[in-house]
């Protein structure tokens, strides 16, 4: 295999491999910027850099975990890891290096910071709104985080222990020259826990839908001898050679391979006009950052509060309204919510399960993500003989240009339009927009369920209104052209990427901005259409940040450098 060798000891582990832990804590830190504090912080960075979990470690653990789970048919007991990654805001990098160096990060979203760019994402403009950066729990203009620590573990106890340890280390940050600990050189300004939801919602987000099903595959090797790709290739190269250069090459059904430069600096990037080959030099390597940015990545974190009761109330009321409309009799809250998501709560895609949920399909990981929107799906890809799998004998997706089977603005269709020729002129361009998502829910599950109000009626106001949602994380090498593009150009747009259909009902913002409502169009098989008026955002940003996740030696040698 002639793909690039990734520097797996340098790249932080959450980026390309993903921690995949059920228990995580995000520590948002503020740096003091006086010279003594900076010196102490640099010492702390030198001390902590060996503790940062690398791609090499996390990848190997994940592989071994999967192998054991496949053999045991359940999670291996006692096999656990606790990971740590670190990321920095542009402002923090400036304090640790210089304005001139940070100016070499070409991404203006990163340099400007999330609070400044919230309007671009259509976060609420009303300064009294919960979602306005002024009111964020972290990441607003007055409480911007300089450093983010991500701690993740399979074991809650190990996680708690590690977090305690890290906090202790913070207060021990000591100037090596003077031997003085400048008190608050680093303070935790917000501590955010994230937890996989308990059964039956494990792996789901708070609205009830299975999350994280579709991730891009990444080209590149974590090791050359023997060659080990960072993304496993499960398609049988002999039975299914994937020779059509106009189509992406898939690692597994539904998972296109994308050049690593889209996610990590210093590597070949994906071509807007070509599914297989990077752009011609000099644009072939993504390195729009200082030299020490190599092997690093931008991290977008958004603390998204989800209003579950409002979501359910809307679905029930709207389903009832729609039942009397031609083409939509029999509408249920679950079906409506699934139409707006693009998948059923189990994760089964509408494109392969048009009228009702199909948990069997959802459990078949090779069928569950194998579909497209505009043209009829080809037959299932042949997998390598050693890949254990059930046959994919589910109905293949059939062309749905008009958005009948899956609404054009359904969430999964909006952010990954697959074979659609978008407003950019090509479906291949979509591969350059992809992000690696590493989010995790937070907060207690909401009592009750989608269809009926019974359980909610007997729940307390406190339970219903508790803070819950998603700590959304994603990695990319261009916030502007990837995360922000998906949010601004597609999710928040009335017609992009499928030339119509309205805004993304789940993450599209703007219900309050300038008094605009959001609209989504759904169509029936009888060729009727209904435009739904979505008056309130069910998903509200309440914190976050744009960060840079450097290579491990950059943390030690550049950010943590000893300066005489």
């Amino acid at each position, binding site marked *: 295999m002639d793909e690039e060798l990734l520097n797996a000891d340098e790249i932080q582990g959450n980026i390309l491999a993903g921690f995949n832990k059920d228990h995580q804590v995000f520590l948002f830190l503020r740096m003091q910027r006086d010279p003594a504090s900076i010196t102490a912080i640099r010492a702390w960075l030198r001390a902590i850099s060996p503790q940062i979990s690398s791609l090499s470690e996390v990848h190997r653990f994940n592989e071994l975990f999967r192998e054991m789970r496949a053999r045991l048919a359940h999670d291996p007991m006692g096999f656990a890891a606790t990971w740590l990654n670190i990321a920095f805001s542009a402002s923090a990098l400036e304090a640790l290096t210089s304005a001139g160096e940070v100016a070499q990060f070409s991404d203006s979203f990163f340099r400007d910071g999330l609070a*400044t760019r919230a309007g671009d994402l259509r976060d609420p403009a009303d300064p009294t709104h919960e979602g306005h950066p002024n009111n964020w729990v972290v990441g607003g203009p007055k409480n911007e985080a300089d450093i983010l620590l991500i701690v993740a573990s399979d074991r809650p106890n190990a996680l708690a222990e590690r977090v305690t340890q890290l906090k202790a280390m913070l207060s021990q940050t000591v100037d090596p020259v003077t031997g003085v600990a400048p008190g608050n050189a680093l303070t935790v300004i917000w501590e955010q826990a994230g937890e996989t939801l308990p059964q039956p919602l494990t792996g789901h987000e708070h609205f009830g839908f299975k999350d994280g099903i579709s991730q891009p595959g990444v080209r590149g090797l974590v090791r050359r001898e023997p060659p080990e790709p960072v993304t496993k290739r499960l398609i049988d190269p002999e039975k299914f050679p994937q020779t059509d250069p106009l189509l992406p090459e898939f690692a597994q059904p539904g998972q296109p391979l994308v050049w690593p430069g889209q996610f990590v600096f210093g590597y070949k990037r994906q071509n*807007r006009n070509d599914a297989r080959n990077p752009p011609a030099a000099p644009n072939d390597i993504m390195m729009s950052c200082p030299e020490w940015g190599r092997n690093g990545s931008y991290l977008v974190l958004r603390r998204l509060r989800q209003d579950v009761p409002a979501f359910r109330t809307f679905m029930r009321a709207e389903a009832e309204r729609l039942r009397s409309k031609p083409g939509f009799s029999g509408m249920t809250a679950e079906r409506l919510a699934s139409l707006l998501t693009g998948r059923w709560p189990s994760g089964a895609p509408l494109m392969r399960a048009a009228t009702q949920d199909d948990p069997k399909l959802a459990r078949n990981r090779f069928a569950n993500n194998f579909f497209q929107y505009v043209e009829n799906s080809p037959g299932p890809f042949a997998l390598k003989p050693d890949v254990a799998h059930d046959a994919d004998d589910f109905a293949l997706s059939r062309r749905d240009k008009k958005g009948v089977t899956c609404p054009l603005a359904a969430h999964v269709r909006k952010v990954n339009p697959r074979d659609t020729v978008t407003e950019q002129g090509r479906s291949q361009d979509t591969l350059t927009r992809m992000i690696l998502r590493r989010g995790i829910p937070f907060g207690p599950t909401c009592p009750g369920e989608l269809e009926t109000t019974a359980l909610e009626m007997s729940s307390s106001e406190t339970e219903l209104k508790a803070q819950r949602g998603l700590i959304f994380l994603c990695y990319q090498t261009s916030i502007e052209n990837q995360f922000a593009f998906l949010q601004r150009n597609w999710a928040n747009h009335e*017609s992009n990427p499928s030339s119509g259909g309205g805004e993304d009902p789940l993450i599209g913002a703007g219900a309050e901005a300038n008094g605009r409502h959001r609209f989504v169009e759904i169509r029936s098989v009888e060729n009727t259409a209904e435009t739904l008026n979505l008056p309130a955002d069910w998903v509200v940003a309440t914190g976050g940040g744009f960060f840079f996740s450097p290579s491990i030696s950059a943390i030690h040698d550049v950010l943590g450098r000893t300066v005489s």
Partner: protein
Amino acid sequence: MLLPRFDPPAFLEDFTTVDQRKGWSKLVSDFFDEGVAFNDGFEGVTSQFYHPVNTDTTEPSAEALIDWPAFPKLVKDEFPDEAEKAWRKAEIGPQARERFMDEYLEWHVVRNQQNKITRVSFTCETTQYFGFLARTDKAKLLQLYKDLVNPAVKDQVKLEDLMPNNQYRPNNKWNTQHGAVHLIQVNNNLRAEVLIAAQSCILRQNENGSPITDAPTLIDCGVGGEAGRASDPKIVADVNSLARDQSSITLRNPVALYITRWDSDGLRKPDNSPVANYWKLVRGKPAPGPNKPAMGLHLVYEVPASEGFVVGDIKSGNRTIDFGGQLAEHINVGLFGVVCREGQSNNPLFRCGEQPASHLPLPAAAALAGELPPLRGRRK
């Protein structure tokens, strides 16, 4: 039902006589005739592209919005990580507009003495329309120019500048240095628009007989256009896809290019509060409702004097609006198709490079204008 005639873009009310209305309709009609003849010229083909005045639009029919981002993709792709270089290239420098603004939207920037932008005007009107006015109503031509150029100099506009030797000159100084009254980029013309849609209706096949669905390949195969833009591949992909559905396809009346959507996301006043709506649709029709595209022809971005700051003070992130292109990034441009008779066509597929057997009729009205506008071509 049959369309009675082609109306002026966005149902503009510039025309005052029946002759003008008929003349404009004939001008557009000729392009459709050419498009139909192109298709019929292929062996065994009954054109799926149809002339809506001559051929019925039967029910069920549907409209198809085909739109794309206004900022030129070719320029953007040259500088994937340096947005400012892209903005600069598209509009600064000799003939930047004519060379680079090739997605059917062009703009003109007015700056004040501090070199700050005070006004940006965006147009997707065509030379064909203004050339037609020059032939039929010079007074209106002059009036429109005065309305659409930099207001500071509008009283200086003279008919002789627009029509030296009584011939309309599209690249006159008022439409270049002092305004963007209509499109002048050689590929941004009405004939090109109609023909690229018409030519996309020919079905093409690979050596193995399977249909070619990839727009860049279709472009190379004979549709024309430039695969590296957003507009051409988007139009070709969407129209050819409808043709592969065996549908009949035409363009929706009134036929034109349109500014379909624009927004102010992320733009902030100097005090960091979000901007108010400083977009003014000067010509064209606004969106008929939320979640619907507009039929915009001419948009101006200018801050009212009462606000106390100018466009160049508006912030996007931590920088200011220093280029019209930054605003162009908030705009979609497009056209509208009409589709009917799905599944009823049964045309053969052709190999790459095959051309119609018979000769195309050249549009008479356009020939009258002195010059036949070219079809969509590659960037030179």
